[in-house]
């Protein structure tokens, strides 16, 4: 059935465009457009020096109702513990198996369960999840999170509280820079199964257009920025 439908739809499209299949020379141009994507209009908020981008990233994340903290390398675990204590949250955390989070997992104040790799998938009972971002987008305060063996995608969505660690070096300007990171991760293979661009905690306005934070995803989003980029201090 689908094959007949497929042909009928493609034929219908071509009839409407008053042509047959795309001619070879046009196809070559289109193919190049796909293989070497060009940016379109990139707004000024997606551009700037390192320090400007990092501070814009933190401001934009806060505007989207995330909380943020900026710490020296190695202080991530303490930052997570401080945040949980300050918000009177449980110290039991589910930490992605990502090796960049080993420091968080070693924090003595926390009671840690790892998720991903040999530890299996996140559980419905995980109240606090800790993930590591691939990148941060200064333009919108967005975190780019990719699924993989040691970074389960459900950890971004199931817990009530989501803590995301992102390195200052990985904070880039806009979406286009984020896509470059993604393509580098994929290395010519298909993209990771799930790419989450996360901007603030979950929310809804579906009841009388009153904004409520904490719909089905996390009620709180906390961003821990690891200050590993000397260039991000003033320019």
């Amino acid at each position, binding site marked *: 059935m689908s094959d007949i439908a497929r042909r009928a739809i493609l034929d219908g499209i071509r009839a409407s465009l008053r042509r047959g299949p795309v001619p070879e020379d046009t196809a070559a141009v289109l193919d190049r457009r796909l293989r070497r994507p060009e940016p*379109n209009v990139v707004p000024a908020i997606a551009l700037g020096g390192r320090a400007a981008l990092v501070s814009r990233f933190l401001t934009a994340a806060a505007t989207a109702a995330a909380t943020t903290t900026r710490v020296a390398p190695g202080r991530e675990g303490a930052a997570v513990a401080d945040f949980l204590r300050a918000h009177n949250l449980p110290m039991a955390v589910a930490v992605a198996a990502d090796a960049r989070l080993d420091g968080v997992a070693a924090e003595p104040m926390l009671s840690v369960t790892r998720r991903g790799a040999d530890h299996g998938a996140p559980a419905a009972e995980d109240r606090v999840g800790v993930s590591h971002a691939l990148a941060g987008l200064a333009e919108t305060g967005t975190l780019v999170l990719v699924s993989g063996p040691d970074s389960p995608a459900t950890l971004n969505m199931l817990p009530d509280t989501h803590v995301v660690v992102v390195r200052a070096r990985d904070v880039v300007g806009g979406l286009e820079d984020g896509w470059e990171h993604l393509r580098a991760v994929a290395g010519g293979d298909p993209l990771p199964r799930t790419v989450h661009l996360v901007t603030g905690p979950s929310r809804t306005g579906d009841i009388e257009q009153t904004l409520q934070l904490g719909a*089905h995803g996390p009620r709180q989003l906390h961003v821990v920025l690891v200050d590993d980029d000397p260039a991000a201090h003033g320019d």
Partner: protein
Amino acid sequence: MHVTSRAFKENVRGAVTDPNLRQSLATMKTGFRANRAKAVAALPEFEALRDAGKAIKDHALAHLDYYLERFEERVVAAGGHVHWARDGDEACRAVLDICRAHAARVVTKGKSMVAEEIALNQALEAAGIQPVETDLGEYIIQLRQELPSHIIAPAIHVRKHQVADSFRAHHRQFPADRPLEEPRDLLDEARVVLRDRFLSADVGITGANLLIAETGSTIIVTNEGNGDLTQLLPRVHIVVTSIEKVVPTLEDAATVLRLLARSATGQLMSSYTTLSTGPRRPDDPDGPEHFHVVLLDNGRSRMLGSEFRDALRCIRCAACINHCPVYGAIGGHAYGSVYPGPIGSVITPALASLEEAAGLPNASTLCGRCEAVCPMRIPLPRMLRNWREHEFARHLAPARVRWGLRIWSLAARRPALYRMGSGVTARLLMWLGGRRGRLSWAPMASAWTRVRDLPAPPPGGTFMTRFRTMQGQRRSRR
């Protein structure tokens, strides 16, 4: 596509006298409109982005066959499946076949207008499969057995006490006297109830805001996170979407994303923009094991060859709906189509038929606000006028309207006759208006005078006579 627009006039009568609906619609001005205006003002490149967005969609539509084939190749390369569907029945059948193959009993659904268009829930229920809407607004209207009244805020017509009533009637597991006065209480209860459904569903169905030919990814843009739990927790993820959603590259998607959230809710980005590419990889600890994309045509390939092609650029942001004075007065249900407002009045006749959608192209004052705010610069007023011409040419307009227009055009093409006619009418109305200057009844205008007075023309004659007098005065002054 099920359309009840024939009853438009009766629906409107009900809508304008519904106090709950009036209250609900009043929030739109302070919410969506103000937020969009603020977001647009804060981005100097917004107009340039609109031009770029329009160019991207025009390019994608001009090579739609090519980009759909590339998209399909990439989905398959990532381990997914693509199903092509000419109409709603074929799309529903494709979804049912997948559900049956996995012996699905409960299906969770993220918000999808295409699923509404093909009436997927009814098809699932008829096959003994329980669909559970997980977007809060969609969940509320599913409990109330209603259609969405807005494409991004499906329950905008429902007041919170009505939500509480539905929850009390359906969530019998909780104490009957629990407090449900505040939106927070309602949201927390829905979160608890739906969390169980997310975890127990066999199949998750979402829509898509964009399809990426470069990567074979589908993108959903959401705020609640329900679309993510819907697609990540069950073993099977089905994307129900339509052919015009494909764009070439992620860079192109970036332009559309910058326009979408700002035009819709005034956010820079919605909370979650999620790219889904194929099923989970062998070493992934979570995510769906199967990934299917159902590509619906349902009249779109035909629209591509018509004067309504530009409407295929629509990214379903709802800006035109939020700014439409007619929608603001009557809400979404009166339109009788799952797509209300200006964009609905343009695409419903194209996707269903003009006969079924009769009346919709007239549900507009042609004030032009919709086109002014459309991020894709769709010439909605022009298209509404085109439909009216079709309606007239195909004798679908009521006889009174056709005769009225015929008489008017007869006069309008004869200036002397027109001036004489309007002069006589103006004098007659002035006389009837008397000293009050208003008429509480006028021939052939009883529909107007039943609810308000008709102002009589001011003294001094018609526009043309006053214009001529003024010109004469000017000339004599010189």
